[in-house]
């Protein structure tokens, strides 16, 4: 075990995979000499050389298109998109190509690419360095969508992603890249997909969140416990595949659900979670499902602290939910 920040854990995950498998390589903008703008790939160029750490020209469609070709050939590319906000030039390659290769070829051409992208707000990044657009990818058949919230999960989920057989969107909550530290197992530590993490056990309400919202929700639960409200927290970890069984079991126990994400509310992932609960846990619910999310505006620079869900907004929603039934 080693005490690491989340971004260090990503780095160790990449290093581990590259040491274990010569087919793993990293490509993206500024990932080599510069070690990535967040330093997630620091030291990899020195250890593995230019053949396995490719500083690419500034073109997201070029990065993902070439990564797809590499994967078709049998390599295991890990592509970095510098910010999730910049991924759209590659959207065609991701949703039309990467997500559909296995399906459209009748299984002849699996195409396993891991796309890493820092995402989310809270770093004063304004419109174009802050967005949480995980729902676009979760909506596309053929993509797995993974979001760690702890250093151990960052490494463990990343290693699982790199050794998976399908395309994986690996979204890294950059707001907590360095603010969260934790013990990380050494070696080839893997965390399976499709298993939510029980962050906190509780009996009155279930809180569902992921990424940088986990520390916010945890703090809110701590605050609420002093008011006599017992909150259960599930960190979803992987939106696709989703651990529906754990989600339903929690609500069957608590009877109340509050969904928290920083993405905009309308058609956000919380809408899907709410629908699943309405369809499959309706008779367990004692109160309406609540959502605490970003607003349906573009991401505001100066007002980001007011846009993002915070401890008070989460606590407010939980109190209202508990009071209502």
């Amino acid at each position: 075990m080693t005490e690491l920040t989340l971004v260090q854990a990503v780095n160790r995950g990449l290093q581990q995979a590259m040491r274990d498998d010569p087919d793993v390589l990293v490509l993206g903008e500024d990932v080599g000499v510069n070690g990535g703008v967040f330093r997630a790939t620091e030291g990899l160029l020195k250890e593995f050389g230019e053949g396995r750490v490719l500083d690419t020209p500034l073109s997201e469609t070029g990065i993902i298109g070439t990564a797809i070709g590499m994967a078709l050939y049998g390599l295991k590319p890990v592509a970095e998109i510098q910010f999730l906000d910049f991924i759209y030039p590659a959207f065609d390659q991701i949703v039309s190509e990467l997500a559909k290769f296995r399906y459209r070829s009748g299984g002849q051409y699996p195409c396993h690419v891991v796309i890493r992208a820092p995402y989310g707000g809270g770093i004063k990044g304004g419109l174009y360095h802050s967005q949480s657009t995980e729902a676009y990818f979760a909506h596309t058949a053929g993509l797995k969508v993974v979001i760690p919230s702890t250093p151990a999960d960052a490494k463990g989920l990343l290693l699982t992603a790199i050794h998976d057989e399908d395309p994986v969107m690996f979204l890294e909550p950059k707001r907590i890249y360095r603010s969260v530290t934790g013990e990380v197992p050494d070696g080839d530590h893997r965390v399976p997909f499709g298993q939510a993490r029980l962050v906190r056990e509780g009996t009155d309400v279930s809180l569902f969140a992921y990424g940088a919202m986990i520390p916010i929700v945890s703090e809110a639960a701590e605050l609420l416990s002093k008011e006599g409200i017992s909150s259960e927290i599930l960190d979803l970890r992987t939106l696709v595949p989703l651990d529906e069984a754990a989600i339903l079991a929690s609500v069957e126990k608590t009877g109340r659900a509050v969904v928290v994400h920083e993405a905009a509310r309308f058609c956000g992932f919380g809408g899907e979670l709410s629908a699943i609960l309405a369809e499959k846990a309706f008779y367990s619910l004692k109160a309406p499902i609540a959502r605490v999310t970003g607003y349906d505006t573009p991401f505001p620079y100066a007002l980001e602290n007011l846009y993002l869900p915070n401890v008070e907004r989460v606590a407010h929603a939980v109190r209202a939910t508990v009071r209502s039934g």
Partner: protein
Amino acid sequence: MRWTHVQYSSVVRGPFSPEHHSRVISGGRVGRRMPATQEKVAPGASAAAPDSGLPPAELLAAYRLMLLARATDDRCLSLQRQGRIGFYVPGSGQEAAQVGATRALHPEDWVFPAYRELAVALTRGVPLERLLDQFIGNSGDLLKGRQMPNHYGYREFRFMVASSPIGTQITQAVGAALAAQRRKDPIVTISFFGDGATSSNDFHAGMNFAGVYRAPTIFFCENNQWAISLPREKQTRSATLAEKAEAYGFPGVVVDGTDIQAVYRAVSDARARAVAGEGPTLIEAQVYRFGPHSTSDDPHRYRSDAEVAHWKENDPIKRVKDLLVQAGLLDDARDSALVEAARAQVGRALAAAEQAGPVAPGTMFDDVFATPTPRLAEERAEFENFMREGVIKP
């Protein structure tokens, strides 16, 4: 303008000027859209590819493939009108470019096609029956009825699976080339695309990446003069498409795509360069799409019969036939027999393909992921229950 720093083709050498930077490497006649400054370069002018072209016996085999592609096109256009297949993308007029280019490849090379590459697939060895299975979308279709006709792919023949978005295969071919380079495999990848694709994001990105990394890849542009209704002149102000390669730091060549030998030499040369570590080549094969863009298109809305007739004077099939007649390998009687044999082969393959049953409905849920997610398994169970109860019917 200065071009002095540009390394141009190993096929065409000499000082650069904007007037002389793209030339036809064949002795063939070219259509009227061609720029006036093209020059003829003798076969074998390249040091990298001493190959002087397909030998006569190969030429005859190539001719038969071209006839088969043409016969398949003709038959499939009528099958679509009869409602026996849902859609079709004809490639008539482009057979010499496709067969010539593919004959210059090695079996271990990787092909990244667009959706108009029937003659490429046939030349790679894909059985016509498998292609017809795909056009019908039946239980024999390796793609399990998932894609529109012409969007096929066959791993066994290192023929990637096409998609409908334009140009996306270009960056992918570059990536596969980089993977081959990394593994030191002495192979090339080749992307096939049309004139319209040269305006796409992925053309730019792929050309740029390939130039930067000296990828062992060939960009094979079939400039068939029309991107649905948009003529080549409105696609770009550039005099040729090939000259775009200069900006990316590698050679671009224009070749008369109705001249199979010229295409074969150009691709052989590009392949030799790539395998030797000299990097990519852009080849612009100038051809003409004789038919509609697809069965959903009416070309009379945007081009004249006279223009089509003009290009048909240069039908690549006629040109190869002339070569074979000159070589004493073909006469009119034998040619008629070959044409008939191609039609008969299409008829037999079609009869076999139409015997196959439909795709099993439950396969809709296969191959989304290697292992279905719980959500997919649940949807499949619901679907199969609906089928059993007759809520939905095949």
